[in-house]
């Protein structure tokens, strides 16, 4: 698993800032260290600064302030072609006038490698992405998924230790994308390379990464492994950006710092149990977040002393593997409950009135 310690960081952003126009900062005070062999994903909406960070690392943008280090060496003033970083671009950027083999051979040629060595490496890289027979084709003759594999092979063929990927699966259809996610992950693990992966697709980020950095407004909002990120979002942006999320507005009624619990009085007057994440004072406005799959309406499974809320079923949607039920809870008409399609699972009907509840640790009181 990835190391998060700074002293053996392979890639390091140290107080990096970036501005294009001298008026606004696109990247604000970025501090990030990535361990050797780690798969780190930069996740965020467009305009959050994640691609700018990647381009600064690749050398296509210069940092306005701060240092970027690679393997302990400062690389701010090293031109991109001397950094030895592999990169997979959004639209693959395979050279259309070269064959697949020539594309792969290109980085080796510019490194003045001998012909036989080149050919062996190209073939090995092609075999690695299961495209061994496609060396003579032109990129235009390949499907999107195949081009994706070639782009990956080209970024790996010169044995870069660090590979950057800028939304590499964005142009593929859903099924292929899911398949490629695992494949990229496996290849990266097998080769032991460090990957910095940029995406705006949170599923992709969760399935592939060792750690995910959630970007918003030029800052990293949270940097954690996928499970922590999903289950323990640190603020309301992360909670809403990652996965589906139910939110309720209320005021902090009571805080017990020792037990790490808080009671929140919702706007309609009902009281619920939460854990305080970034609320500290009684009376503070808060946004309470609960994951749809953590909501319980089966009385037998609820704690006896748990606070419950009255809910009315508005809509029941059958989605195959899960049931998705829309409820009205404390005035929120978009309160979603997800239940697994299991033999003993109850299908709710529109109009039913239920009591719903949850474990206090699943209900997080965040900044409003």
């Amino acid at each position, binding site marked *: 698993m990835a190391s998060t310690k700074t002293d053996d960081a392979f890639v390091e952003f140290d107080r990096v800032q970036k501005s294009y126009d001298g008026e606004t900062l696109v990247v604000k005070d970025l501090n990030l260290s990535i361990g050797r062999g780690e798969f780190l994903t930069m996740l965020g909406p467009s305009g959050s600064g994640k691609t700018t960070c990647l381009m600064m690392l*690749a*050398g*296509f943008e210069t940092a306005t302030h701060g240092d970027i280090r690679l393997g302990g060496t400062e690389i701010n003033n090293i*031109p*991109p*072609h*001397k*950094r*030895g*970083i*592999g*990169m997979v*671009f*959004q*639209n693959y*950027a395979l*050279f*259309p*006038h070269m064959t697949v083999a020539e594309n792969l051979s*290109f*980085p080796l040629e*510019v*490194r003045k490698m001998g012909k036989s060595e080149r050919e062996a490496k190209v073939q090995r890289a092609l075999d690695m992405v299961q495209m061994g027979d496609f060396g003579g084709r032109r990129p235009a003759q390949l499907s999107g998924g195949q081009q994706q594999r070639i782009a990956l092979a*080209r*970024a790996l063929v*010169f044995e870069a230790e660090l590979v*950057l990927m800028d939304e590499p699966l964005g142009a593929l259809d859903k099924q292929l994308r899911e398949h490629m996610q695992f494949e990229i992950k496996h290849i990266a693990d097998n080769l032991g390379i460090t990957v910095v992966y940029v995406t705006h697709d949170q599923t992709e980020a969760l399935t592939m990464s060792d750690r995910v950095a959630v970007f918003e407004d030029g800052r990293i909002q949270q940097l954690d492994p996928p499970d922590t990120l999903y289950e323990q979002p640190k603020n309301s942006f992360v909670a809403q950006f990652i996965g589906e999320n139910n939110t309720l507005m209320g005021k902090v009624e009571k805080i017990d710092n020792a037990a790490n619990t808080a009671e929140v009085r919702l706007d309609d007057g009902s009281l619920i149990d939460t854990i305080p994440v970034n609320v500290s004072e009684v009376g503070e406005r808060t946004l309470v977040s609960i994951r749809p799959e953590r909501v319980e309406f089966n009385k037998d499974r609820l704690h006896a002393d748990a606070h419950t809320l009255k809910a009315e079923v508005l809509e029941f949607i059958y989605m195959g593997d899960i049931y998705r039920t829309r409820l009205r809870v404390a005035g929120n008409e978009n309160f979603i409950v997800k239940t697994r399609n299991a033999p003993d699972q109850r299908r709710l009907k529109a109009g039913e009135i239920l009591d719903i509840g949850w474990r206090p640790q699943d209900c997080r009181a965040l900044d409003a």
Partner: protein
Amino acid sequence: MSDTAQSGPVLAADGTPLKKSLARALRLQKTRALLLIAPLLLFVLVSFIVPIGQMLWRSVENDIVSDTLPLTVQALKTWDASAGELPDEAVYAAFARDMIVAVKAKEHTKLGTRLNYEQTGISSMFRQSGRKVGKWDPVADAPFKQKLIDVHDGWGDINTWRVIQTHARKVTPGYFLNAIDMRLTPDGATTQPEDKRILIKLFGRTLFMSLIIMGSCILLGYPIAWLLANLPMRQANILLILVLLPFWTSLLVRTSAWKVLLQSQGVINEILVWLGLITDEGRLVMINNQFGTIVAMTHILLPFMILPMYSVMQTIPQTYLRAAKSLGATNWTAFWRVYFPQTVPGIGAGSILVFILSIGYYITPEIVGGTKGVFISNRIAYHISSSLNWGLAAALGTILLAVVLLLYWCYDKIVGIDNVKLG
């Protein structure tokens, strides 16, 4: 469902063959489409195909001798020129009768002009003789042989008759031979005398200078096209207007402006003298020579090079260069190995355009070219408007057309015309 097991043609639902019923269904559409393009088709036919066809025909057409002197031509058929004797009275009589008719119709001077291309002096022979022969009577004044020789001793020269005999054919290769500095003589095709051999040199010069102009357009246009494709929208638009500006100025004005700039008392020379870089006596000769033509035509044809290159470069994303650099290529390698090959279609399109335009250019070489900087087109214009030798002009034009088609074909073989992108 179609019945694939059934042998023979596939049938439509009503039993007619499917192909037939498809053709019927499409016929209305096709007719309508044809009617839509009919005006254009007609226009192209009248203004393009017919004139070119006529030019091609004119370059070999030679009706004038056999039309004006039908009896003479008939009579000369039996005459053996190699015997070294003048034709007999029958030929002279036929000629006199033809001439009497021709003089009435005032055709004999035209014939004289035509034959004069082949042998100098014949034109005046026809004009002088016409005045007298026109008054003769075809029956009463016979015999004619001696009388004609008395009128002009040229009729007693065996060569005159050989020329008439040689050019009596209705279709002649003579103009084409002339166009490549040869001529059709009674003894077959021979080269022109040294002092008349100018056309091949002109062709060579036209090709050579067109290549130089094309080359300088590529060198000057490439960076501009690159800027156009890579600058931010606003600046690129301003630059594009600057590129297109010459299109909105009269060609004549632009060419004359170069005259002002380049002449020996012109702006450039004055500045150089004032700066002391050249002496007053040593003013540079930059106009009325090849240099002037090349400079002015490069300037005029530059947009035709820039625009196709620009449209191709616009489609090449910056990520290719970035990808190349991330793979370890220096700026130069990235440009040369990745960017440049992708712009070749644009260079090809621009080059064809500029080369073909310049090979037939007329106005600019005429104004700034002097005698050393003129093109073959200036010679064609001379033969059309001054010497009135339209047959030769047509032959030159046909050769020019053939050269262009040949180069186009070569280009297709080497680069491939599919690789050319105009936009």
